């Protein structure tokens, strides 16, 4: 490496450093800045001047200090060891940094993303002599109890596999070679690298056709997200964006979850780190940590690394998708990412567009969400993977006309609108049922094996949403003339809407049972509430007084039904009998 290109710092303005003598450097090359050896990335080139966004605090850097071009773009290391890791925005392992340097982040430390010493048992899945090319799976490593890590042929490699042997390898040891047609040999390793700003190739993209089940009733039932779909959660502070993201990270039926804490609180990452190893995945019974990768670039960590963090996260997510897995990525909060972009842009003295954001804000946001999707993955064997993205958005003052919200709404297919008013009423999740939407609703039926159940569920969601919409109009009338002026059917509609809100939509994330509701239980709960509605209306038609209906003791049971554990779901089903019984006793 004696030939490395070396420039000189000429200007320092916060996180952006300008260097001269950089002729020949390429955009997005990683550089080392100053005597402290800070890590940076070239984001602008003008003749021999390079503007560099520095991933670490630049205090103490000044003109004349050296800048060294590593001549490689910002990349992540992909291979066994990703699962259960916690990284900063540029894939430095935070746990190992604490060990090496203490509780506070020091500067200039480069530490590889993947452990170099750990050995993994590798089992080939193809024969020596086979022809391989990009994306082909050559073997497997069992990574923890949940995940089979598929080892894939990296980009640019094609030829005949030789010397591929079962054995225990570190990520940088050679597991076999690929002999190209021209006789050259490329060594295969458990690890490959990928530049984070480029999306990983796929054969083609497919329309999503399955829901990603989250166990959150308001989401799954009314505003579902698909495997390979995109969603955003905008809302003012304290309305529950992070809790929604955490709930999804915990309960979605994905094989791998990548959680990016982007410019948010340190304690929220600690929360994940303490909870996930304890919580069990409802499907496998294994700790949730065994399928998770965490990226934590908190609000007080350098902004340039925050800008990079979502790319680091999405690249890792794509890599698992390429193995044929269902992957979900949560980014909390994409507004902080956009602000990092704005800050860098300002220091580069670029022409600002709206609210000071760079003109390319919309394009960057769109490109990020475009990396989601259900796809046919590259390589043999033929396989499908899916990557969903769920982004939180934190608009100033909760104002949805904010640039980041608007640019995001242009591209995502699901909108969970969090309302300050609901949060203040402690109605959680504070997802507003009147303004939220999902383009994936049509796949709800696919969640049920039983065709009849599927049809019923779809009908139930339409009916109940109809009631909720009606409620908002009726409440207007009540405000003007009082509830007594309403017809019994309208009063019944109000009462059932209240029950839908309190007994169904409201879901306590911190309650042991309520935190997750299976699709089957969602069907039973919603069915039960609407059954009472239907039976009540029938009784009213026969002359039963609405006051008697309102006083039915079964309402208490309905209110508590969501706390009935999954194993005892028969008890939920039985409530319908109680409804019949009690209504039957009403005098008409």
């Amino acid at each position: 490496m004696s030939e490395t290109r070396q420039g000189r710092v000429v200007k320092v303005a916060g996180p952006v450093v300008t260097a001269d003598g950089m002729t020949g450097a390429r955009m997005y090359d990683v550089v080392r800045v100053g005597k402290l050896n800070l890590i940076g990335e070239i984001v602008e080139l003008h003749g021999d001047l390079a503007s560099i966004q520095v991933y670490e605090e630049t205090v103490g850097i000044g003109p004349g200090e050296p800048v060294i071009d590593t001549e490689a773009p910002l990349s992540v290391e992909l291979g066994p060891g990703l699962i259960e890791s916690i990284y900063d925005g540029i894939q430095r392992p935070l746990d190992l940094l604490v060990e090496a340097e203490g509780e506070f982040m020091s500067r200039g430390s480069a530490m590889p993303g993947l452990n170099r010493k750990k050995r993994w048992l590798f089992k080939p899945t193809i024969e020596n002599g086979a022809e391989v090319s990009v994306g082909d799976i050559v073997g497997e490593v069992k990574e923890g109890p949940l995940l089979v890590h598929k080892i894939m042929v990296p980009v640019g490699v094609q030829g005949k596999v030789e010397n591929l042997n079962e054995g225990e390898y570190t990520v940088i040891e050679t597991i076999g070679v690929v002999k190209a047609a021209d006789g050259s040999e490329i060594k295969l390793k458990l690890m490959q690298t990928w530049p984070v700003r480029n999306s990983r190739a796929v054969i083609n993209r497919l329309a999503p056709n399955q829901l990603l089940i989250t166990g959150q009733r308001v989401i799954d039932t009314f505003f579902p997200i698909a495997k390979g779909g995109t969603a955003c959660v905008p809302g003012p502070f304290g309305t529950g964006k992070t809790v929604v993201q955490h709930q999804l990270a915990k309960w979605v039926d994905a094989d791998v979850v990548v959680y990016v804490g982007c410019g948010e609180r340190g304690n929220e990452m600690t929360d994940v780190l303490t909870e996930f190893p304890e919580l069990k995945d409802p499907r496998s019974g294994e700790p949730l940590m065994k399928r998770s990768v965490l990226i934590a670039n908190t609000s007080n960590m350098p902004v340039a690394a925050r800008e990079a963090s979502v790319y680091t996260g999405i690249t890792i997510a794509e890599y698992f998708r390429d193995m044929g897995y269902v992957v979900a990525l949560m980014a909390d909060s994409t507004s902080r990412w956009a602000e990092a972009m704005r800050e860098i842009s300002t220091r580069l003295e670029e022409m600002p567009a709206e609210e000071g954001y760079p003109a390319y804000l919309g394009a960057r946001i769109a490109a990020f969400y475009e990396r989601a999707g259900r796809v046919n993955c590259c390589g043999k064997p033929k396989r499908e993977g899916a990557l969903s993205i769920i982004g939180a958005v934190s608009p100033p003052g909760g104002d949805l006309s904010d640039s980041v919200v608007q640019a995001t709404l242009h591209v995502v297919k699901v909108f969970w609108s969090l309302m300050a008013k609901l949060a203040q009423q402690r109605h959680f999740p504070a997802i507003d049922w009147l303004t939220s939407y999902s383009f994936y609703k049509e796949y709800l039926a696919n969640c049920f094996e039983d065709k009849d159940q599927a049809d019923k569920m779809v009908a139930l969601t339409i009916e109940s949403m109809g009631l909720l919409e009606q409620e908002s109009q009726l409440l207007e009338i009540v405000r003007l003339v009082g509830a007594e002026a309403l017809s019994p059917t309208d009063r019944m509609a109000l009462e059932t809407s209240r029950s839908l809100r309190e007994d169904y939509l409201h879901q306590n994330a911190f309650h042991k049972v309520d935190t997750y509701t299976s699709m089957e239980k969602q069907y039973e709960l919603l069915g039960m509430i609407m059954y009472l509605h239907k039976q009540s209306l029938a009784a009213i038609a026969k002359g039963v007084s609405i006051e008697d209906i309102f006083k039915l003791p079964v309402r208490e049971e309905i209110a508590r039904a969501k706390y009935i554990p999954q194993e005892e779901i028969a008890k939920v089903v039985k409530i319908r009998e109680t409804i019949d019984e009690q209504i039957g006793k009403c005098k008409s």
Partner: protein
Amino acid sequence: MLSIKEYQTVTSISGPLMMVEMVDAAKYGHIVDIELGDGSIRHGQILQVENDKVLVQVFEGTSGIDVEKSTVRFLAKPLELAVSPEILGRVFNGLGQPKDDGPAIIPTKRLDINGQPINPYARNYPNEFIQTGISTIDGLNPLVRGQKLPIFSGAGLPHDQITAQLARQASVLGHGEQFAVVFAAMGITFEAAQFFINDLHETGAIERSVMFVNLANDPAIERIATPRFALTCAEYLAFEQDMHVLVILNDMTNYCEALREISAARKEVPGRRGYPGYLYTDLATIYERSGRIKGKDGSITMVPVLTMPEDDKTHPVPDLTGYITEGQIILSRSLHRKAVSPPVDVLPSLSRLKDKGIGEGKTREDHADLYNQLYAGYARGKEAQELATIMGEAALSAEDKKYMTFANEFETRYISQGYYENRSVEDTLNLGWELLSMFDDSELKRIDVDLIKKYMPRFRNKN
């Protein structure tokens, strides 16, 4: 150590900023001394270096600085605070210089006031209940050690009384352990600062306090450094001296205005209401310095105070603060008018870490259910109160009237306790039950039936 270099090459001055040219080897973020023609010294920090041109922000302001006669000394280090265990009990100005007549601090070390971010992996989740003796906090919005919980106040509201009460009363339940108090005053009045300091004197708490005081008539730009001095001191006490530290930052709105002034002078693209686009990140580097660290005994709990211009919660200062802190205590002008003290606006106030610090073994098993019920009851009662003001009390249903009575009682007995009553959490919880006893048990839907049996006064008296 680099030798100190001197220059007389100030080329321009504009607002709080000064340009110095032909400077060799200046470093971003380092500090300078500026010697004026009359021999007086000012202090500055380097905001930008480009080749040999250096842009300096002058903490004491630039008025009276002369382009010709000033000498700028480059000190080749960032702003630092000299610390030693003797720092307790001392008063400093906003730039960390002793302001009392105590002796100079003989430092055991000098710390960069910018600090370093805590590695998120090294954090310990805050979960130890702090008894503040204030019912609206302990009962409804519990504060835990290591939390950052701001007070959103307004001009003329009694936030000074509340912070003094907190400093006086806060202790960790069961340990009776007192907090060390680090107080940063930014642009507050002499009276407000003196009120707080006198209070600490009276209770003897001054011995375990450190003050950094920048008053309303002190240089505004200095305020940018003041909270950083305070937090550097707090980190030293918490993580090197094993103390539990309560940091009070008052008033963050003034801090943000100083930041806005610099940003405007630099002609940066302004964000909302003229505040710079990086205000969020800048505030985060302050607020995120609170917390607990694995393997360390001390902690930093932070109570920033800010006044909301026009009581507007969506103003950038409260808005961005709320996006960073772990909840907020909001004061209400209408409660203040009704002489409810402290006038905590219960419904929009929130402690996000409450659930981890309460319950069996921490406070009491009924705590969570109880605050949910009180909250729901008060929310309903407030609606009734509002209805009554619009339509007259006669228009209320019997049900609504009951809830209104509850809300009134709740305000006068639970919320309003004065600034000198130190209620134990036990008393706060029992008072909650007493207020709820006006309802039938079946109305208390948020409370577990067994807990009602155990704690409701009418049952307790029977046992």
